[in-house]
């Protein structure tokens, strides 16, 4: 009884510290940490080295796969074996804006793992033979897997026709990339400087993390944040032939400027996922969707643009067309008061449950940490309270006035054209 009550007290004090304050360390690197009292810690080095910043197509993808290879302090093998001894997990992932280098480890091992992450930033050797022997096979495997996945293919094509340059650059290198090791080195030198790096920790004390970052990233060259021309939205239609049995249609719209919660709420409004298992759901889309066809909303916020859309996948082109027509009908209809309330609650829950996972925290707060803004989960969630039915409706009507981004992947002779689904 006594034990139970003490644990509750301890947990409540820990939970009180569930926000991150962004601190500029002396080297100019932004540091933010959240400690919810988990048994493990994770540290993510977020680098502005996503595909929108790359100097040649595919270079960002190669640099992502170069993570945790040999540095001035450790060889590639040494990094892996030593991390295994500590029982940590090292991952690198690439988005259109950021390269995320993450280490997850037991509490107490932070000094070693921050050193591993920092040594790639400060002393990556990037030798040519590692590119050929270790990195290019990984790059090729990623690219092949991406080209066989209709969802990835549709979203890649959608980004390209929606934004053309910058955010339109593909996340994946082509299967026979034209870059050399020197391109990767140039890209790495320009990206690995103080203004381009933010450090996010979960399950670790802010002061401790700042101290370690100071220790290992102290001598990093200082720079202002990398800037790219601001994103413009174009839109258009493209049809990609694919032998994959899944027939895919993507109907999307883009906006520029900072992502707004209205769109997140609209995405939840359109999302036909059922609230209980084994049910079809009550949204008009799910009622019109033939069985075997799935409809999911895609809401991808970036620092200066948002891609919002619906991905429809079915076993045959006719079913996919029926579902796509239902989606367009819902997009064009008015949002009622009750629906708007439901949508806001759903969007808020989505954002909150995203913040439960480590990847979610990084994607939710990453851009805010770079902007030096208030990067707490509480403010992110409370900002949803400003969304009203009329703001959702006006966001939807504004979207529909822009040129849609329409992509089909699959049997292009049978899949519908944009005007056939009512766009």
């Amino acid at each position, binding site marked *: 009884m006594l034990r139970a009550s003490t644990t509750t007290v301890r947990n409540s004090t820990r939970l009180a510290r569930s926000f991150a304050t962004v601190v500029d360390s002396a080297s100019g690197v932004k540091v933010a940490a959240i400690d919810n009292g988990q048994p493990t810690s994770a540290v993510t080095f977020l680098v502005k080295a996503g595909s929108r910043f790359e100097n040649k197509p595919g270079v960002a993808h190669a640099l992502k796969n170069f993570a945790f290879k040999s540095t001035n302090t450790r060889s590639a093998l040494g990094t892996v074996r030593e991390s295994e001894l500590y029982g940590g997990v090292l991952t690198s992932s690439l988005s259109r804006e950021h390269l995320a280098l993450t280490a997850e480890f037991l509490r107490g091992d932070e000094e070693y793992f921050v050193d591993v992450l920092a040594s790639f930033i400060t002393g990556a050797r990037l030798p*040519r*033979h590692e590119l*050929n022997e270790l990195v290019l096979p990984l790059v090729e495997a990623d690219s092949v897997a991406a080209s066989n996945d209709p969802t990835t293919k549709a979203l890649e094509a959608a980004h390209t026709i929606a934004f053309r340059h910058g955010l339109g650059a593909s996340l994946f290198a082509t299967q026979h990339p034209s870059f050399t090791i020197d391109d990767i080195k140039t890209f790495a030198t320009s990206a690995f400087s103080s203004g381009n790096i933010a450090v996010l920790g979960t399950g670790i004390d802010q002061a401790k993390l700042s101290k370690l970052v100071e220790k290992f990233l102290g001598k990093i060259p200082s720079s202002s944040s990398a800037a790219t021309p601001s994103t413009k939205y174009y839109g258009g239609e493209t049809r990609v032939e694919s032998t994959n049995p899944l027939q895919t249609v993507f109907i999307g719209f883009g906006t520029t400027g900072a992502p707004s919660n209205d769109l997140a709420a609209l995405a939840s409004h359109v999302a036909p996922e059922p609230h209980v298992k084994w049910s079809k759901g009550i949204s008009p889309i799910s009622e019109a969707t033939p069985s075997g066809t799935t409809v999911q909303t895609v809401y991808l916020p970036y620092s200066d643009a948002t891609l919002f859309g619906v991905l429809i996948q079915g076993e045959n082109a006719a079913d996919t067309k029926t579902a796509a027509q239902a989606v367009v009908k819902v997009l064009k209809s008015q949002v009622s008061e009750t629906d708007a309330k439901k949508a806001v609650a759903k969007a808020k829950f989505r954002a909150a449950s995203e913040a439960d996972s480590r990847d979610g925290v990084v994607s939710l707060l990453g851009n805010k940490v770079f902007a030096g803004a208030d990067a707490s989960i509480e403010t992110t969630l409370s900002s949803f309270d400003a969304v009203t039915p009329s703001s959702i409706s006006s966001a939807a009507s504004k979207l529909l006035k822009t040129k849609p981004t329409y992509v089909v992947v699959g049997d292009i002779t049978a899949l519908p054209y944009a005007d056939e689904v009512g766009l």
Partner: protein
Amino acid sequence: MTVFGPLGPSLANYVRSSKTLHRWLKPVSLWYANLAGYRRMGLKYDDLLVEERFDVQKALGRLNAREAYDRAFRIKRASHASVVHADLPKDEWVSASEDKRYLKPHVLEVVNEDLERQKWDNLTVSRHR
């Protein structure tokens, strides 16, 4: 590990570190290298490295395109010289300044990687807190 040959243990560093020894033995080494005759066949010393080994094979894969092409060309030219039982014309001989160890650094790198792997494979772990 090879006992003899270019990849075996060598006293070269010791000789280089001593001024007197270096002054006495340098002419002998130059005389020996010329006497060995590989330069007259248009080869460099690293072309003679025993290549039927995994580490040297891996090192050969790390040469850049230019080095790999030149190596293949030299070996082909030397094989032809061997078939016709004649040295190359004098202007095609490899001079002492051209006879660079282009492959050895790569081989050493691979050898060190193998040694490191052995080290990690046979590690006894004790943790300090």
